[in-house]
């Protein structure tokens, strides 16, 4: 198992290497010269220009430039952004990556859960009304024109109903007079979320086999207690209202991204379930007289999960692309919007930097899926 994971990790590093190479040569292949972009940019003072020229080796031959670029990328030196002038690219990205990560991870997790749950249900009751409704609405949402759908969501929930803000990351009116930065608050929110998930996971692990207290298990009680404790702790922290403001801005993009991406998982789970349901072990489980939902969840769905997880890679890429679109429509300042703004203003260092990080995102997603697969499929674990 370790060998398998190590081999996959090696492939990932190679892929990252190729992505960086690809972006470098794409930029080189475009009409016009990368070096003159720097030289002609009026925003840059002369000394910065010569410094950049030196650190990127822009007067050297191409292969040397490539090697320097590789070294710079792996040491985190992506140059200075044109658009955000004195700030280096890496600093701009460091501010925005957590925002994309939260949007993307939350939406992917919830869409996977919803998709798997629905897919399981519609495969089990083949031909019912639920199947038609779920297939048609799922396929419509899946193929819906994402920007238009996002705008419709904004129009309904932000404009007409006024439940959520129209877009952006925070409301300046709330933040006026606050003595902390948005990133400060946001990183604390991330820490809280991570701690909560870890706590809930450990609680589940420890109390899984413990006795039940009335109708609920100990683990559920523990998670519920933690879920109550978190808002209380934030309310006394003094920055609770700021966190709430960010949270309010987060809801609509996450819901939209979830809605557009759950259908892929749902339809795939349905197909995979239909194949699994014909297996002998499902019939054996039925013959043993197990209750229907146990046959469905423990015997059929558990095995139907494997191909779904394999193709999770595709849905993750779909969600990464989707988050670029969602970010641009909701003006959510993450890596996707950064990429788009950089492309529009021809801020090439930032374009290359964001592309490398978006590639890195998808590679990390790959690794996570691989680990998950090893965990789920004992045939790989014990090989």
């Amino acid at each position: 198992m370790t060998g398998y994971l190590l081999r996959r990790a090696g492939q990932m590093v190679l892929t990252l290497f190729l992505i960086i190479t690809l972006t470098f040569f794409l930029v080189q292949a475009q009409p016009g010269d990368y070096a003159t972009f720097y030289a002609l940019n009026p925003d840059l003072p002369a000394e910065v220009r010569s410094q950049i020229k030196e650190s990127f080796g822009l007067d050297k031959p191409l292969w040397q430039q490539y090697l320097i670029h590789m070294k710079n990328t792996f040491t985190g030196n992506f140059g200075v952004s044109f658009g955000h002038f004195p700030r280096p690219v890496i600093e701009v990205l460091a501010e925005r990556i957590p925002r994309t990560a939260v949007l993307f991870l939350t939406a992917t997790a919830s869409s996977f859960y919803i998709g798997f749950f629905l897919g399981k249900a519609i495969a089990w009751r083949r031909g019912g009304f639920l199947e038609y409704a779920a297939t048609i609405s799922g396929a419509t949402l899946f193929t819906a024109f994402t920007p238009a759908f996002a705008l419709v969501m904004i129009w309904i929930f932000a404009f007409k109903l006024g439940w959520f803000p129209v877009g952006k990351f925070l409301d300046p009116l709330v933040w006026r007079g606050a003595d902390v930065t948005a990133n400060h608050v946001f990183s604390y929110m991330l820490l809280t979320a991570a701690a909560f998930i870890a706590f809930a996971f450990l609680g589940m692990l420890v109390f899984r086999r413990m006795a039940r207290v009335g109708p609920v298990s100990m683990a559920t009680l523990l998670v519920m207690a933690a879920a109550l404790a978190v808002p209380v702790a934030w309310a006394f922290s003094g920055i609770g209202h700021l966190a709430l403001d960010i949270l309010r801005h987060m809801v609509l993009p996450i819901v939209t991204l979830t809605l557009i991406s759950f259908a892929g998982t749902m339809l795939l789970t349905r197909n995979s379930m239909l194949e699994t349901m014909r297996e002998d072990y499902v019939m054996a489980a039925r013959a043993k007289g197990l209750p229907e939902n146990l046959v469905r969840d423990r015997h059929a769905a558990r095995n139907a999960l494997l191909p779904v997880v394999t193709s999770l890679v595709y849905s993750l890429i779909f969600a990464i692309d989707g988050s670029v679109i969602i970010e641009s429509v909701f003006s959510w300042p993450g890596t996707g919007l950064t990429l788009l703004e950089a492309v529009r203003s021809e801020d090439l260092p930032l374009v290359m930097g964001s592309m490398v990080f978006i590639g890195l995102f998808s590679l990390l997603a790959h690794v996570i899926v691989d680990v998950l697969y090893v965990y789920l499929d004992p045939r790989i674990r014990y090989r």
Partner: protein
Amino acid sequence: MIGPQPNHPTDAGGSSAHSGPPDIDLGRGRFQIIVARARLALRTVRDGWSIFLESRIGLLSLATILVFALMAVAHPILMATVWDADVYDPVTGYSFGEAYHPAAPSWRHLLGTDPLGRDVLSQLLSSTRSEFVLGITAALVTVGIATTVGAVAAYYGGLVDALFMRLADLIIALPGISLLIVLSALFRLNLFYLALIIGILGGFGGTAIILKSQALSIRVKPYIEAARTAGGGHFHIIWVHLIPNLLPLSLLYMMFTVTGAIFAEAVLSFLGLLDLRMSWGIMIHTANTGGYLLGGAKYWWLVIPAGASITLLCSAFYLVGRALDEVVNPRLRRQHD
């Protein structure tokens, strides 16, 4: 079974050896083989079609695609007969008859005009054609590459296989829309280049892997063995025995590629990154940059026709693909008890 059954020995190709001396007329034999093969293909298509007919969603989607195809055909005809080019041209037209633009739908402009005074219906119809051109070009390129790569990789295995599959892994790992956004910053992308890039990315990417795994299961079938024993060369086996059996699955993935291509074009046009004359994405982009989108239902004709067309055509191709999936993959079919 339906379909003509050979009841005469000379009907089936290659059985002429029974009648008379072994006087092999190669030209005639080849012709008979072609006829027999065509008949077999026809029967497969007919069987598949009867399975496809059972899927109501698939039929409805096919009808939707046909309606869009009619729309694409209608535009040049309307431009030539009823519509005056000065007023109704999708890009350069201007309606002098309306006091304000965007004008609400009227008899003169069935879907109103856009903020620049152009007829929305004409834009909608003329875009349909380019969406079809884009989708079908991209799908053909994808499937052409993917079928060849899949068959070759599965047939030869070894280094060729490893090389193509690592390349496919790399392409899968790239987020397509993000990559296209980067490309549009560096180069001027028109419809043809866009279709080509989408086709190449799809062809060497995920589709190649899926077709390769199918080709692997075909490669171990007895008839491949038989063809090899009979002295068939590599090229002959790949071309005559492997690829034709991949075609149903290729057709299926063509449908999914069309969806992807139309979607990618619409997103990039919406973001204002493409070098096109007119498309559904550009129509929404025009409405969006003019600030008409948050007017909501008031300016519905600027957004809903184009947005609904993108969604409808994409989901129609997608659902036809899913219905074809049930034809190609017997395990998905509903059992007839």
